[in-house]
């Protein structure tokens, strides 16, 4: 069977979706291993699933409703302690709108 090739454009596009910036070396390694994996995934085509419903959950789930009550957890300081950058008790992030 012909191995599915992944083009450079595809890998660039997928990296954008994944929000990753891969070095040349890393890109080559990942590309090589991804191709092997995708090749292996194509084994699934052998299975006739025409009459099968996809199973996204193991057990039948129903919505869980509860009262819309505020449960106060005084964790503000602990949460801020983990933030990479804090300013005036707020998490500091780079500008979201280009100037």
């Amino acid at each position: 069977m012909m191995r599915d090739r992944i083009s450079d454009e595809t890998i660039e596009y997928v990296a954008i979706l994944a929000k990753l910036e891969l070095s040349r070396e890393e890109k080559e390694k990942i590309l090589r291993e991804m191709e092997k994996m995708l090749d292996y995934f194509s084994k699934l085509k052998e299975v006739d699933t025409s009459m099968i419903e996809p199973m996204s959950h193991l057990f039948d789930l129903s919505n869980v409703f509860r009262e819309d009550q505020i449960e106060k957890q005084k964790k503000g300081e602990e949460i801020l302690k983990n933030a990479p950058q804090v300013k005036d008790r707020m998490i500091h992030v780079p500008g979201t709108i280009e100037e």
Partner: protein
Amino acid sequence: MGLLNLTAVQLSAKIKAKEVAVIEALDAALEQIEKLERHIHAYVTIDWEGARRGAEEVQEKINKGELKGLLAGVPIGVKDNICTENLLTTCSSKMLKNFLPPYSAQAVENLKKEGAVIIGKTNMDEFAMGSTTETSAFGVTKNPWNEEHVPGGSSGGSAAAVAAGQCFFALGSDTGGSIRQPASYCGIVGMKPTYGTVSRYGLIAYGSSLEQIGPLCKDVTDCAAVLEGITSYDKKDSTSVLRKDKDFIKDLKENIKGMKIGIPKDYFGKGLSEEVKEAVLGAAKELEKRGASLEEFDLKHVSYAIPAYYVLACAEASSNLGRFDGVKYGYRAEEFHGLHQMYKKTRSQGFGTEVKKRIMIGSFVLREAYYEAYYLKALKVRALIKEEFHKAFEKYDILLGPTTPVTAPKLGDSLLDPMNMYLGDIYTIAVNLAGLPGISLPCGKDKKGLPIGLQLIGDCFMDKKVLQAAYAYEEARGRFVPCIDEKLKSWHS
């Protein structure tokens, strides 16, 4: 070595009888850590002071008669992807190197209420992605039976710590075999409960529809006690199931006479080592002697479990790991221009290669035009596999097979050929796809002296039967001598 030879339940009994103080038990484990960590490296973080404080608090409660449970006073390890309040939880990743969770996982809360004392956080494959604990950003864990070999993964630190007496039991997580496989490689007992049994609240998510927290222990009784301790319905986990039959200890010793055991032929095919096969079939014979019946049967779709699993696990990972963006917690790149570059640089510098690869595969299979060919297809195959197990359990109480095709590989070998490493998950992975309970317990050693694991699988919510069968085999087998007595001599000489 005296105290370290006790199981968790035995230790707790002695503590409650005032024969042993909690601090003595903790010191025994800490001493073992001091002696062995440089050989094994099972822990990412050791909470020397917190553990001592914890031991004192627990002792006080035991003295007052407030703590009477089976695990009161027992020092434990917790896998580093399970949140512990104010104790570093890194997922063995640079991304979470400094992460101090503001809360504990529900399973951890439950164990604290039982009076367990947390020693520290155990090493793992980065974000639980791997089968050897070699993808950890903080160094490789070694197998205590032979330090040239891997302990398995991803809960390799938990398994090695238990096997080496560096704690009395540990928590792990199992997405595709990550508790059972390292338990098998390290000669201990590890169990993945039925999906929904243990709350996933506070477990840093990798493949949410597949994973469960579970125990890694010295024997089946400990395993039942820990599972009973961590099982709870939790409204904070939308997939949590209310289990009414959680008295796993009470029914543990039930007679297995008449138990029907199915042996899937497909679990004994190409790739299985002769030594593993012999040991596992020998274990089956022991169960037969105790009154169980054995029958072979076909489980043919199981060969599609690995590709289906990796499509789904990578897809879920690419979504779950989207939260690591350098904004609210974890690593943030130092230099960047603007928000988007901050995201990209943070993620590229914070994640290791295996994690990036799985995120890339997940993003690839979820792309608009390919979603149906890969993701939906895998969900359909998953349904088919679950159905096949369902049919098997109409005939059998328990399925029996090996946990892994071979014993622990040498360090370094697996990552040279990751595809081959993924194939090693063949016997454990289908259990996660179908949400079933599965246990691994030692059933022999190979010529190199490395442990071999027997896997027992039950139908959904039949965790009790799995434990009963495992207990019956353990009784028949007798004590499985831990590695560490001999090893200590060789390391000290």
